[in-house]
């Protein structure tokens, strides 16, 4: 994982932890705030009780005054106003409190006070006619409950006061009549405020207000502006009329608290509760919200400490991870170096074995071609077999290396199943015959002809199984069976059942598990004389697994084994392959000795290799083509010739001392003074490890050919790159063909490359002419004869040609063997009919 991802993940984790902490802190703070607010509400209700008790006490004292005065009246000794005030003056204890007695029966609202006017010590008269404090009170019928006025200005001393009321009956000292009066116990607001001083200890900035039903202040906290709480609230807390009404209803109808914005737009809290004992008065306690939420800072300190701790942990982790990464990096580097060393080893091994093998097989090929001594040919044939075995071992190691490196891929193509069988049988048949084994074929004739899959790997799997069967069978037979059945779950697929049964040594039950393990050789003591790496079955199993199949083994030790697998293949063409035995026997009968595919006396080729023997092998293998072949033993020599002479094709070895093939071609590509700008350069290499083809193409080569050189592939490569005008039919072949009955074939198709290919594929005994349209074909037939007209299915044949001569096929889909066998069959049938 990259360093930045580790850091990002760590940061995310830290962020998550911090988020959780912040959330936790916030939740705690919210809880704490809720708790603080609840306490504040509780304080408000407690205060309300204190105030209510105090007001009741004051009212009670007022009632005592009134009762005393009224009792006097009831007992027939009514007091005059002067006597009543004189009594109150004596009865009241506190000098701050005064008593006013006013007449209310005549609406004059005037009377006398216990204390004199502040401006005139001799004036005890008092007049409430201009002070509207009784508007909402039923002063004529005060019934003894708390009857409290709003805070008002004491008309005698200008002090803000509240008043407690009760009715009294007094005697008019002038008329002697009984008058209705109102006794007023006047208490300065400051006295009430003193009762609430205790709150300052708990809440420094708390302010208490008492409001009436309309929100007008009876007692006014200084932070609550305006003369009306509701107006104040509305001024600084914009909201809709409905919301505003809801807030007012809330305050009027219950006990609780709410957040409000004060005149400075600061968050504040008001707690409210109705004043018990009073009609429609409410206590409102105001406090700035920050005073209740101050405790939150503790959580932030904790958060800060945790954050710093996590950051330190992050840096420590990064430091540790980086040191681990450094170690891992060293280890990885070592592993890469080891892997590179392995690749280098494989490459070198492949190269170093293939290079002498090229000489051995190449030279042996020359013996097989040129010798006519039966004994020598037998020896040479043995050398070829052993060489091919050795190559098989090297290929197995390389394949296994590819599988391990994960570079092996299944490459699916359309293929002809008969052709695949041909190749398989061809590869194994000879070995079986040489060992005196009976090789029996049992091929289901209903298997579709054209399938879609990885032909090369399937062939490799079956080859490995068949090779093993031949190798481990001393006597008896090897039976190769293939059957096909249509897949039930997928209509486009056929299920191939492949089985190889032998009468060989068999496998012990306890060894079956080791059969597919790489580099394991079963019953090593007995089978030491048999060549093999122990990779064949492992590779076969791996390939089958990659293709969704599995190799199964049934074996009886000492009696033989049967290897089988089922393989699902997509069907391209459902046409059955028919009787394979017949076709195969014909194929066998046609197998003949090497014949050169072409001659090109005017063609010039340059082959570059540091190994002189290989240069000789290359030249010798192509000797019958009569091409002009020049050789160079180094990159520099190659470049010198490259600059001086024109060549139609250049074969350049990769692994050379001093200047290797890659460096040489790079220099060649940069070279401007050469007649070989367009000359194809083909890499000749003994290196066949995975990924080589891409490397050579990227390096600038047009193609590559592996050593040991296969003559057929080499000639095919030449045919592919030589200009057609330089290529001729080999003369001796032409002469031979003169002695044989010649069949003329006209091939008609639109794909010129394919037509040319088909012409190359067909044996020399056929006189092949290719044309690319129906019109050209008709024009040709006007002057020439053709025994067979092989037409691509795209060409319209109806009515234009002699039907008995027409063979119309999908030429794109057909392999070389398909075409050859079907043409042979056509002429065989034709010859038989003519006899």
């Amino acid at each position, binding site marked *: 994982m990259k360093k930045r991802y580790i850091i990002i993940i760590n940061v995310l984790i830290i962020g998550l932890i911090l988020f959780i902490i912040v959330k936790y802190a916030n939740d705690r703070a919210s809880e704490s705030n809720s708790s603080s607010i609840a306490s504040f509400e509780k304080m408000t209700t407690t205060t309300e009780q204190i105030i209510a008790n105090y007001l009741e006490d004051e009212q009670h004292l007022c009632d005592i005054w009134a009762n005393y005065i009224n009792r006097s009246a009831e007992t027939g000794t009514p007091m005059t106003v002067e006597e009543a005030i004189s009594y109150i003056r004596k009865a009241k204890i506190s000098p701050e409190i005064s008593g006013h007695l006013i007449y209310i029966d005549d609406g004059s609202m005037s009377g006398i006070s216990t204390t004199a*006017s502040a401006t005139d010590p001799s004036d005890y008269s008092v007049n409430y006619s201009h002070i509207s404090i009784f508007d909402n009170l039923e002063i004529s019928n005060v019934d003894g409950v708390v009857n409290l006025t709003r805070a008002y200005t004491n008309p005698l001393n200008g002090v803000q006061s509240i008043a407690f009321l009760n009715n009294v009956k007094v005697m008019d000292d002038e008329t002697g009549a009984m008058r209705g009066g109102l006794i007023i116990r006047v208490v300065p607001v*400051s006295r009430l405020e003193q009762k609430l001083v205790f709150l300052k200890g708990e809440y420094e900035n708390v302010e208490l207000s008492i409001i009436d039903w309309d929100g007008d202040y009876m007692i*006014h906290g200084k932070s609550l502006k305006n003369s009306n709480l509701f*107006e104040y609230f509305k001024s600084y807390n914009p909201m809709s009329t409905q919301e505003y009404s809801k807030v007012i209803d809330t305050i009027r109808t219950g006990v609780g608290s709410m957040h409000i914005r004060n005149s400075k737009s600061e968050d504040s809290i008001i707690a409210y509760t109705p004043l018990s004992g009073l009609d429609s008065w409410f206590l409102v306690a105001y406090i700035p919200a920050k005073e209740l939420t101050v405790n939150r800072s503790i959580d932030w300190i904790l958060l800060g400490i945790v954050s710093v701790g996590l950051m330190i942990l992050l840096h420590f982790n990064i430091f540790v991870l980086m040191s681990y990464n450094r170690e891992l990096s060293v280890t990885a580097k070592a592993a890469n170096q080891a892997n590179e060393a392995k690749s280098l080893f494989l490459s070198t091994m492949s190269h170093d074995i293939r290079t002498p093998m090229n000489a051995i097989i190449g030279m042996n090929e020359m013996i097989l071609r040129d010798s006519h001594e039966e004994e020598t040919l037998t020896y040479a044939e043995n050398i070829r077999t052993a060489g091919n075995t050795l190559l098989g071992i090297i290929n197995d190691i390389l394949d296994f290396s590819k599988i391990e490196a994960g570079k092996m891929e299944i490459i699916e193509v359309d293929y002809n199943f008969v052709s695949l069988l041909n190749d398989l049988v061809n590869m194994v048949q000879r070995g079986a015959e040489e060992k005196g084994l009976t090789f029996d074929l049992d091929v289901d004739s209903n298997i579709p002809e054209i399938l879609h899959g990885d032909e090369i790997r399937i062939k490799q799997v079956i080859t490995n199984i068949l090779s093993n069967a031949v190798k481990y069978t001393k006597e008896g037979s090897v039976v190769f069976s293939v059957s096909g059945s249509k897949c039930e779950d997928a209509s486009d697929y056929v299920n191939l059942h492949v089985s190889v049964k032998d009468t060989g040594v068999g496998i012990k039950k306890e060894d079956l598990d080791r059969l597919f393990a790489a580099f394991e050789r079963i019953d090593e003591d007995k089978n030491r004389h048999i060549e093999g790496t122990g990779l064949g079955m492992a590779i076969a199993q791996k390939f089958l697994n990659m293709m969704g199949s599995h190799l199964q083994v049934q074996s009886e030790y000492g009696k033989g084994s049967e290897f089988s697998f089922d393989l699902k293949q997509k069907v391209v063409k459902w046409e059955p392959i028919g009787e394979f035995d017949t076709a195969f026997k014909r194929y066998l009968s046609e197998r003949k000795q090497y014949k050169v595919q072409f001659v090109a006396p005017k063609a010039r080729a340059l082959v570059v290799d540091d190994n002189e023997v290989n240069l000789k092998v290359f030249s010798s293998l192509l000797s019958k083509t009569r091409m002009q072949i020049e050789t160079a033993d180094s990159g520099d020599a190659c470049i010198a010739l490259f600059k001086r002479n024109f060549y139609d094709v250049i074969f350049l070895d990769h692994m050379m001392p001093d200047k290797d093939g890659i460096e040489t071609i790079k220099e060649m590509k940069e070279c401007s003074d050469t007649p070989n700008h367009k000359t194809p350069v083909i890499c000749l290499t003994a290196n066949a490890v995975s990924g080589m083809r891409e490397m050579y193409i990227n390096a600038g080569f047009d193609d590559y050919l592996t050593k040991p050189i296969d003559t057929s592939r080499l000639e095919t490569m030449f045919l592919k790159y030589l200009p057609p005008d330089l290529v001729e039919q080999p003369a001796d072949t032409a002469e031979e063909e003169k002695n044989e009955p010649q069949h003329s074939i006209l091939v008609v198709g639109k794909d010129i490359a394919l037509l040319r290919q088909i012409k190359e594929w067909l044996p020399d005994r056929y006189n092949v002419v290719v044309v690319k349209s129906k019109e050209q074909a008709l024009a040709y037939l006007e002057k020439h004869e053709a025994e067979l007209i092989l037409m691509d299915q795209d060409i319209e044949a109806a009515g234009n040609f002699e039907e008995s001569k027409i063979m119309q096929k999908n030429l794109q889909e057909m392999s070389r063997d398909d075409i050859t066998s079907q043409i042979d069959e056509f002429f065989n049938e034709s010859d038989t009919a003519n006899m």
Partner: protein
Amino acid sequence: MRKNIRKIISTALVTLLILGTMGCGQGGTTSKEFSPKYSPDTEYKLYIVGTYSNFESLESAIERFYVHYPNGEIEYTYLDDYINTIGQALAGEEQPDIFVVQPWMYGDERFDSLFEGAEVLSDPSLEINLDCIRQGVRWELDNGDVIALPIFATSYGMLVNMDIFEKENLKVPKTFDELKKTCEKLKAAGYDSPVMGSNTSTTPGIGYSFAYPMFAKAVKDDRSVEEDLNNLVPSSGEAMRASLTRLKEFVDSDCIDIDKCSAEIEDDYNAVIMRFFEGDVPMMLCSGDVVSGTKKRESKSEAFSANPFKYDFYVAPSGDKGGYYMDSVTIMFSVNKNSANLDMTNEFMRFLTSEKELGLMAQEKRLITPTKDYSLDEVYGSLSGFPEDRSVSFRDIALLDTAVKEFRAGAFKVINGEMTVDEAVENYGTISGK
């Protein structure tokens, strides 16, 4: 070259800025922001009493004062029955440090104690900058002492719906002729009563708002009649003739439908504002006190909330050459020289006495600032630079309340056809009693 131009421009701008900030200078010196005289840590508690039950503009000023002196508390309290209780309060145990006085109180023996106990604010040691107060409303005693600081000024005139004038492509009339022509056009445009007002005999009423400034100007021009007017000498009623005649002419000119006013405007304050906010009255006669109530009632008027419009205050165009600007003081603050916190009280007064603070207070209360700068409240923008020769301040005349009452009563009766102008003039001294 470019640098020099920049220098010149910069210098010019700085100079302009300095000149622009000049105003309330002390002896011609440049004014400056309030600079606290005492330590910001000073603890204090001040007590202000007044006649407003709700004095939010003062509370806002107090909040601004707290910025300089945060460790104190200033409490404003409305005194019930202020006329009778202020004296008691000043003599009582909880004496206010600052109290409200009104111009009419001066000379009334009931309030002598108030003025006797008031601090001399013009004392140079207090460093209160009284120069920013308009000369007309500066309340100086004969000996030059200033014992009360005007807080709000008021006037009489009319609220003008500027949107109607813009819509009808008309200018606000400045002379009586222009008023008549404008009203004709407005009437033609469908406004039944281009001018409206409260048909009462109070100061915000139609007659007083329209004609009293003209009458006051007549008294200012001939103060010999002043004493007789105050003594209710019938012959002095002649001084009312010109203004009452113009009032009668105004009523008869179809500019105003008195019956409509009586029917649709129930009182001289709330109803005046709410009717004006209906949006179909081009001009509404009223006092500055009425204007002060407009701001809070904007949101209470559904019509205004739905279709808000721009409105300004203008003096009523009663004269041939223009209207008359009655520059009156509404309330003033005096300092109790027996204050327990006299230093901080004077410091607060020093803080208040600036174009900015008094302007902000007036703006919030929507009354006229007593300072020279009208710019803070554009509703009163028309009063800025009003010709001196048609301005009357309370210092220019000394009419007693009784004389004023007679004029109000006369104007009311003339408007309502209860008296002719001649009868009103002849019956001066007894009009209000009839």
